[in-house]
């Protein structure tokens, strides 16, 4: 009896310990997590943690020094390139390991492995898009280039050295205590880095920047609206384009010719193919600005180069600031955790930056199989063989799924006609199920990382042009400036020669005439060196005027930021660094300036429903200077009004069964201002008994806006302030709100140079004066440490939100780096 008494509390304690040690349902093991020494408090970085250290690595004779400056930017000095990239990998892993792990897992469709069955659709989509195939192809290409292989292998070895990977520890010897906090919370373990993971990271970026198209939507729209209305609402080249390459450029080369065919109009409607997996419509929101001004326009007589890529804003940030110094290079800038080298930056001689080309490089082909085995498909009069990749999808707590993905010479069959989805019967009358192959240039063999490797070392314009020849996808506008005074911009990518309209709509995979015939030679891609206007710029707009001899199309060209930038640069002279910083912060809403006066004139003045509030709003909008500043009210009025009007105007396209895309802002403004008052699609479809005119919908949307403003005001008046209404949120990658920064106090919006929207924005702002020494500024909304328990996790966010910059410490000598270092890691 006494023994039972003694054992009972012990047993209860053991059971409690067991449960707290193993985690239940979606909870992590709470006991381990709460451990005040090895649990989450191990990630509570001590203020005094930053001490110099001598590190001697087993099985490695890497020599070099990492000088950490006061913002925790590493300045890596090594003699050999292998050692340089090894240390880049080592240091990046030290501060960003979880981010590198989750991004590459996401890219390869391996999230169900950690999070369970709810991620199966997402994983399947990644596999069907060919992400792993693409990464494997990229690694094969890297292996063919010994110099580049050394660089990527060194980076991989460095990451693995940090994790303690060796023959006895396949996935490293990090203890639970040393794991980044996210591994503890999500309850999984780090795994070793591979060349493939670097490949995956690059393809993840390719997908972010070029994994979009609206071929299926356009096909449906052309059928629904008819060719005339389609071209009216979705013109490929609307009036008023301000292209990247100025009009002075003469395209005096002999273009390569492809067979000319007129695209056929589809007979049926299609569902959005990739929706079959995730059922969310991803709208591309990426964009960017870059420009360079020539010596004749600047006060100090040196080019000034600027870049701000607008990507999804996350913590930890996509970017990691670094200086890389070896006997062959000295370069500073923003790197991508997971890839060696610097992506946007400068060295002692040149600076470069990128914006997304936004040209459509993803096309869809309908495939006709010979029989159910799908081993052969029709191509003209012949049958071609398919190959099948089996993609194993490991699912936590379930059996592994063996997902077959069939490949044609175009690319993977993303969507099988036979795939039964729950609602297939319901839609079978209006949509046809076809086998569709996706052709995406990211799946072609290429070696983009070589471009960055060479740009890191480029000395002049010729080096820059040479570096770009290795760059295929995602197509970018590379802006360039050199200390010697040269400036240039090039749109670089591997673009097929297309007939007019090719690739805008679904193509017929059994018709060889619809196949790519040849590619545009690199030297015929749009570029200009030292233009008369003494500046080059790009903001995702059309690359060229209509004299460029090749056809191209896009799912989303820009029409506003580019004009604001070009107008500003044209008018400026004696330019200094501060002027360029101001331009990056520019909040001018050109779209509003072009449409709002027109909308206001259409408001009914003698309406009975008029209230004080609506009068005030109207008055405020009339007086507005069209700047979307953080604490203004008018941008909120305008945006709510515009969003309501936009939704009302194109309500015809609110169809969940068939894939559509609504006209973009620019074409909508054009329709409002120039189409007839009673244009057929201005009508509201819900109200079948009457026909609304443009003035009706303008007035209705204005009234609706006033009501909404009234509602917001009665709850919390502060929410009318523009920054609160738009609410730029910088979410932690795992979407944990506690690790995120929300409702940032800043201005701007989409189509504004300061492109801070709800989720996206200037992810790295850089201004470089190419003087000697280089005078450079930069900031990104994050921090150098990926650890939420570090004061360096998000310490740049406020600086970024205020529109301020850090002076970038680009050291030309190691002595200088040593003098400025907060602490030093010496490897010997």
């Amino acid at each position, binding site marked *: 009896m006494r023994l039972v008494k003694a054992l009972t509390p*012990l047993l209860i304690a053991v059971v409690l310990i067991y449960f707290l040690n193993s985690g239940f349902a979606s909870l992590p093991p709470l006991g381990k997590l709460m*451990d*005040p*020494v090895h649990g989450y408090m191990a990630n509570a*970085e001590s203020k005094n943690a930053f001490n110099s250290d001598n590190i001697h690595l087993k099985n490695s004779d890497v020599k070099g020094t990492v000088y950490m400056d006061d913002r925790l930017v590493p300045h890596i000095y090594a003699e050999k390139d292998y050692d340089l990239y090894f240390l880049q990998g080592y240091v990046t892993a030290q501060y960003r390991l979880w981010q590198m792990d989750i991004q590459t897992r996401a890219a390869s469709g391996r999230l169900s492995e950690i999070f369970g069955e709810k991620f199966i659709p997402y994983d399947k989509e990644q596999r069907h898009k060919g992400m792993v195939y693409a990464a494997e192809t990229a690694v094969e290409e890297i292996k063919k280039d010994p110099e580049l292989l050394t660089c990527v292998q060194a980076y991989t070895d460095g990451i693995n050295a940090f994790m303690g990977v060796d023959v006895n520890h396949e996935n490293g010897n990090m203890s639970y205590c040393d794991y980044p*906090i996210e591994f503890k919370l999500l309850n999984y373990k780090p795994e070793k880095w591979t060349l493939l993971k670097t490949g995956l990271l690059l393809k993840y970026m390719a997908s972010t920047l070029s994994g979009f198209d609206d071929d299926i939507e356009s096909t449906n729209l052309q059928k629904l609206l008819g060719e005339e209305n389609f071209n009216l609402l979705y013109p490929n080249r609307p009036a008023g384009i301000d292209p990247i390459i100025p009009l002075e450029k003469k395209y005096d080369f002999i273009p390569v010719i492809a067979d000319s065919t007129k695209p056929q109009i589809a007979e049926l409607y299609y569902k959005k193919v990739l929706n079959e997996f995730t059922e969310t419509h991803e709208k591309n929101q990426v964009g960017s600005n870059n420009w360079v001004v020539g010596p004749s326009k600047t006060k100090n007589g040196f080019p000034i180069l600027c870049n701000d890529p607008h990507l999804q804003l996350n913590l930890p940030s996509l970017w990691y600031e670094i200086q890389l110094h070896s006997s062959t290079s000295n370069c500073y800038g923003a790197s991508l955790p997971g890839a060696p080298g610097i992506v946007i930056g400068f060295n002692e001689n040149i600076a470069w930056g990128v914006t997304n080309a936004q040209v459509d490089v993803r096309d869809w082909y309908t495939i006709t199989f010979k029989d159910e085995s799908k081993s052969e498909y029709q191509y003209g009069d012949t049958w071609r063989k398919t190959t099948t990749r089996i993609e194993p999808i490991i699912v936590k707590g379930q059996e592994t799924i063996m997902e077959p993905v069939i490949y044609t010479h175009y690319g993977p069959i993303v969507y099988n006609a036979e795939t039964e989805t729950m609602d297939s019967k319901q839609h079978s009358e209006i949509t046809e199920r076809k086998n569709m192959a996706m052709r995406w240039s990211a799946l072609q063999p290429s070696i983009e990382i070589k471009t960055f490797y060479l740009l890191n070392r480029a000395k002049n314009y010729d080096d820059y042009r040479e570096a770009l020849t290795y760059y295929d996808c995602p197509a970018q506008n590379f802006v360039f400036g050199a200390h010697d005074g040269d400036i240039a911009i090039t749109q670089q990518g591997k673009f097929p020669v297309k007939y007019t309209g090719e690739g805008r709509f679904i193509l017929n995979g059994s018709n060889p005439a619809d196949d790519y015939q040849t590619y545009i030679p690199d030297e015929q891609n749009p570029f200009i060196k030292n233009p008369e206007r003494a500046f080059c710029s790009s903001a995702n707009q059309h690359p060229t005027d209509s004299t460029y001899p090749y056809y191209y199309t896009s799912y989303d060209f820009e029409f506003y930021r580019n004009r604001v930038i070009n107008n500003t640069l044209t008018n400026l002279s004696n330019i200094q660094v501060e002027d360029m910083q101001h331009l990056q912060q520019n909040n001018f809403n050109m779209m509003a300036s072009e449409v709002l006066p027109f909308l206001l004139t259409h408001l009914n003045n003698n309406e009975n429903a008029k209230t004080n509030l609506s009068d005030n709003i109207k008055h405020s909008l009339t007086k507005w200077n069209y700047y979307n500043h953080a604490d203004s009210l008018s941008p909120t009025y305008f945006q709510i009004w515009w969003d309501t009007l936009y939704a009302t105007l194109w309500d015809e396209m609110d169809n969940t069964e068939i894939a559509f895309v609504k006209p973009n802002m620019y074409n909508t403004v054009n329709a409002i201002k120039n189409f007839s008052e009673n244009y057929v699609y201005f009508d509201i479809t819900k109200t079948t008994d009457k026909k609304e005119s443009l003035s009706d919908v303008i007035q209705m949307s204005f009234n609706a806006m006033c009501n909404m403003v009234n509602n917001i005001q009665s709850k919390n008046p502060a929410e009318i302030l523009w920054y609160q209404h738009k609410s730029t949120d910088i979410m932690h990658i795992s979407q944990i709100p506690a690790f995120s920064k929300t409702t940032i106090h800043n201005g701007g919006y989409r189509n504004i140079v300061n492109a801070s929207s709800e989720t996206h924005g200037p992810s790295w702002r850089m201004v470089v004066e190419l003087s000697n020494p280089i005078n450079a500024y930069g900031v990104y909304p994050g921090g150098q440490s990926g650890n*939420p328990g570090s004061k360096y996790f998000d310490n740049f966010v406020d600086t970024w939100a205020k529109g301020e910059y850090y002076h970038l410490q680009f050291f030309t000598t190691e002595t200088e780096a040593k003098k400025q270092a907060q602490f030093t890691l010496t490897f010997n």
Partner: protein
Amino acid sequence: MKIVLIIIASIIICVLAQSFIPLWWIFAPITFVAALITPFKTGLRSFFVGVLIVFVSWMILYLFKDMANDSVMSNKMANLFSVKSNIWLFIIASTLMGLVGGLTALSGYFFRKR
């Protein structure tokens, strides 16, 4: 007096053990042994002493780490678990672990009496 000394010694041992042994439940055998060698009058008393030892040693460790970190991590974790403040998070976790330590102490008490 002897009991007070044992409590203080246990807390010191607990703090050291938690610091150097990566087993979060290492306090459990410590309170068990402490109760085994201490002449507690009642089981209830041994239980509360167990709770006290664990609670105090965990709080010491939490607060020590937290001060050096300016509460950056703990504030975020409190937010994550929807707890009012980081101190409350420490108190809740230390009390929960204290209960486990109390149970093993109680068990130690009964073993001693046997």
